[in-house]
């Protein structure tokens, strides 16, 4: 510790200012995290805004067709990608968490594949969803295929036994 303080002293006013900025930054970060958590406690974060963002998808993007539609291999691959990249926020079964909304809701399940692909590509940055264009286009379509397969799974599980 003594050595560290000596190092800061040698760094002069700029070094001390940097340390102060770091301490201030970390404190602000902690407080912001607490406020954000308390404000959103008990409600899936950004639920309304994220669904509202789907209405902003350009018409041309909505019309894009899923090249993997009906491909069971794509569903499996999309499920793997979902688990790796999306489950952290949207939950392992896409039912939503405090950080991200449910993807089983009507708004998502009835959306055009192109809409989901556009949201994946562009994210909803102002509401905390990052852009996912770093995943190659076919992988994003595989995730869309998986998401749309959840609709069928939900319907099947809801059907009364014959």
């Amino acid at each position, binding site marked *: 510790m*003594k050595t560290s303080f000596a190092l800061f002293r040698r760094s002069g006013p700029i070094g001390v200012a940097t340390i102060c900025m770091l301490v201030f930054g970390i404190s602000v970060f902690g407080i912001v995290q607490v406020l954000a*958590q308390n404000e959103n406690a008990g409600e899936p974060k950004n639920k309304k805004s994220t669904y509202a963002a789907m209405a902003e998808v350009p018409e041309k993007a909505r019309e894009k067709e899923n090249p993997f539609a009906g491909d069971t291999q794509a569903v499996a691959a999309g499920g793997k990608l979902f688990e790796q990249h999306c489950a952290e926020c949207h939950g392992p079964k896409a039912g939503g968490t405090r950080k991200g909304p449910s993807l089983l809701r009507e708004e998502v399940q009835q959306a055009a594949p192109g809409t989901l692909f556009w949201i994946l590509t562009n994210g909803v940055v102002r509401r905390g969803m990052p852009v996912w264009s770093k995943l190659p286009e076919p992988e994003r379509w595989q995730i869309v295929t998986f998401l749309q397969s959840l609709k069928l799974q939900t319907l099947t599980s809801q059907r009364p036994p014959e």
Partner: protein
Amino acid sequence: MAAHVNPTFIRQKVPGLSFLVLILSLLSCRSAVAQESPYIVTYDHYLEEPGSLEVEYFSTFGTQRGGNDFDAFWTEFEYGATAWWTTEFYVDGQTTFDDSTIFTGFRWENRFRLLQREHLVNPVLYIEYENTSGADKILKEVEGHDVESDYAASNAALRKEHDHELEMKLLLSSTFKGWNIAVNPIVTKNLLPSEPWEFAYAVGASRPLALKASPNRCNFCRENFIAGVEMYGGLGDTQSAGLHDTSHYLAPVVAWNLPSDWTLRFSSGFGLNDNSHRLLLRWGLSREFSGFGEIVGRFFGGRP
């Protein structure tokens, strides 16, 4: 009644306890598979996912004419504060063979995404403060008139120089058909008024070996590998801009994103002129921990 706290106890225990808290926080986090780019010097426009902490260790072996070869290393803590802001803290060190191993400084870097949506070219603003000694050899960026002979002196001589620098980059990056192209113009200012502004560049191109994911978890699937090339070097300074007395490197790069949440990176940089180190052999290991922000928030009293 105020409790008496022994200052020696605080001095001895606080750093250890802080480290323990950090380790416990990381253990409490869930790991996440990242799709990391293979670049080591160049930046693309993708930021850390919000709330995630990525811990990275990098090593650079460099050959040195007129001096001893070295191995410079740094540890990065990269945190996604929001979907448009990533902040990073670096700690640097180096071993010069037949000389010594020393701590060479720290850096604090911030990246801000400027546009909400994806575009053909996506700009990100990069601002970094560096507090390093002249013995810093990580070569994370090569600026101004940085040349190989600058690093030839002994560590004892080099560490006498202290640099406080502000570095700014405009990260321009585009992804199309699986290819990522990134261009980073760089401007650096030593905070001493007498020092000139220095210029540099870094460019890179990369692509995953497969664009489609396979249905099963696998270590050696082609989609887990991203290969590319990057080039970086100095462009002089305000007193003497241009390519004379500058060094430049061309480096093939590869990243291996493992399903076990680790990412490995390799790069072999070749000096392109006589002012450059002949070889910069780099490797890095990183792991992403998601949910780190929530854990830290809980330490400050946030709700679980």
